């Protein structure tokens, strides 16, 4: 069961964060809020999202699963203006999500969740931790985009560096420790990632936010940030490229 309403901006933010990786997703609803875990269709990245009921204007939920076509929901939310309230209600008999925006009532059929996986959070230890502004991350990505399809993330005790190497060009964007909000490292680590994934993930972080970034050596990267005014939490994991 779900009966809730939330500001359109917050729902749009959630949809953006999820649609970066998957087209369809299973949302787990309970009394405390909504959560989601999913692996992208190429099996290269994962998302974990938790959304406390504080993210909603009002919220009533009992344990259930909602299979949602994210692209469809994205389209529906375009009907809403920035400050609008959006009401969500699960019709269990018809397996529909009823979405009310102003005078619009949109009934959206839900997707069967039977085929959708329930990933656990993989057991990964990432030795290097840092915090930085989303803008810094996106700036480094922008610098790499004209150079290569990959981006290397390198960190040691003194700095964090994003770099790309193309056939003829290369670029480095180096952030010394002072420019970061936090940096904890023991020794140097480096991993290479597909730039399009990393860039899409970083773009889903709203500007002004802080990002926590965990890194290892030829190991996945973890991006963590808050959404919905601190009432929601997102974790992205991205697998590294194999360097031959």
């Amino acid at each position, binding site marked *: 069961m779900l009966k809730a309403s939330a500001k359109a901006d917050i729902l749009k933010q959630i949809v953006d964060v999820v649609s970066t990786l998957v087209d369809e997703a299973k949302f787990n609803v309970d009394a405390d809020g909504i959560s989601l*875990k999913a*692996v992208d*269709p*190429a*099996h*290269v*990245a*994962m998302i974990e999202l938790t959304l406390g009921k504080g993210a909603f204007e009002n919220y009533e939920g009992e344990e259930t699963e909602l299979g949602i076509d994210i692209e469809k929901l994205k389209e529906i939310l375009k009907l809403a203006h920035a400050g609008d309230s959006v009401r969500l209600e699960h019709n269990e008999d018809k397996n529909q999500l009823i979405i009310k925006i102003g005078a619009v009532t949109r009934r959206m059929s839900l997707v069967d969740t039977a085929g959708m*996986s*329930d*990933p*656990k*959070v*993989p*057991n*990964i230890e990432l030795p290097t931790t840092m915090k930085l502004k989303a803008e810094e991350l996106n700036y480094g990505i922008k610098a790499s*985009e004209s150079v290569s399809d990959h981006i290397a993330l390198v960190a040691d005790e003194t700095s964090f560096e994003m770099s790309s190497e193309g056939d003829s060009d290369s670029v480095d964007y180096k952030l010394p420790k002072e420019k970061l909000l936090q940096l904890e490292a023991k020794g140097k680590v480096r991993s290479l*990632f*597909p730039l399009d*994934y990393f860039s899409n993930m970083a773009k889903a972080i709203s500007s002004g936010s802080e990002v926590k970034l965990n890194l290892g050596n*030829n*190991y*996945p990267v973890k991006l963590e940030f808050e959404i919905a005014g601190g009432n929601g939490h997102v974790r992205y*994991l991205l*697998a*590294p*490229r*194999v360097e*031959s």
Partner: protein
Amino acid sequence: MSDLPWAEKYRPIKLDEVIGNDRAKAALRQWARSWSKKGTPAQPGVILAGPPGVGKTTCAIAIAKEMSWDYIEMNASDRRTGKELRRIVLPGASTNTFSLDGNYFSLEEGKRHLIILDEADNIDSRDDIGGIAVVSELLKTTKQPVILIVNDLYELTRRSESIKKSCKVIRFDALMKDDIARVLHEIGDSEGVKISFDAVMIMIEMAGGDARAAINDMQSVALKGSITSADLKGMSKRNKTVDIREGVTRLFHSVDPKKSLSTIRLLEEDPGGLILWIDENMPSNSASIETLTAGFESLSQASRFIALGGRHSYYRLWSYANDMMALGAIIASGGYESGEQTKFPLILTKFRRRNAVVSVRRGLLEKISKYAHTSPRNVYNVMLPFLRNAFDSSEKFASAMTARLNLTNEELAALLDMPEDSAVVSRIYKSAFSPRQS
């Protein structure tokens, strides 16, 4: 769970549980083990070729489990445009991955990610433009194992030389009757369905070596808990088409004209097409010059019946043509089994290639003519040579124009007069339509 199709419910998990095709299974296992060493083997891909319902997909998934690999499978029910393939298949081919249950699979630890493309021979039909180019790119760049599954190997390999080069081909045969019978009885026992011996034989006959078809048939009549041959009366013989290659091989191996005729009936090929196949393959299947001559005698009779039947719309003559073809094949082979692979008729290849080229070129000319406000003929006679020259001398110009004219991969290749999967074509195409450029 009980409403699952039985063919799914009883799909074997382990490779050794899959019935039949022992040699194919061994070859698949050997290929998979070539991935156990570090790095990428010379043949990163394997093509599993064979008729439907014999366990190709089951084996592909089973080998992934046996090797403890993560896997993704894309089949014809997924959208498989070039764009979708690029999005879903390519990324994991060069990265480590996460399995659906949330485990991290790292190549450094030998944990690989298998990419399975089911019905790969259907990828490049009309709406899948560019799909084949992506598959060939996948095989060139992949660091992960790839399995392509096809019914018709030729449909796939005629489109791309490079796919064939980077793949090992493993053939699967139709299943033996005994094997299918065993499976039907096992499922019958588990489901508590009594099934008479005759009924099993009828279902197997209808399925023609396709285990999935036999199981589906059985499930569809099993509602009342027992199956006898009487229950099957209403079921028509499955319209199972024998692969033309397999059929022609059978015709040359046959010694019984009656059996040959029933083989011909199962082929979805009109006599005009079939005769080209027999013509192409008769020399390599004949026992001696004498039998070959006699065989071609029959074939020329068949040819006359076909022509007469067609000209006068008197198609009953075609059945005589079938008789003569069946006979011709038997006479020519004279009991000799060449073991040579049945070849595709050269004349059809030439026609097909020509038709494909003509239709792509027509599309290209139309697009340019609209853009340049002139006739397609004028484009062909006057503009095309210059345009090709301009494309050759500047890739930047080429990609900008490709985007502006919204050319397909094939049309771009035709304009440049280069193969569809050549590096230049894919580079220009990619840069024309990569979102970052726009």
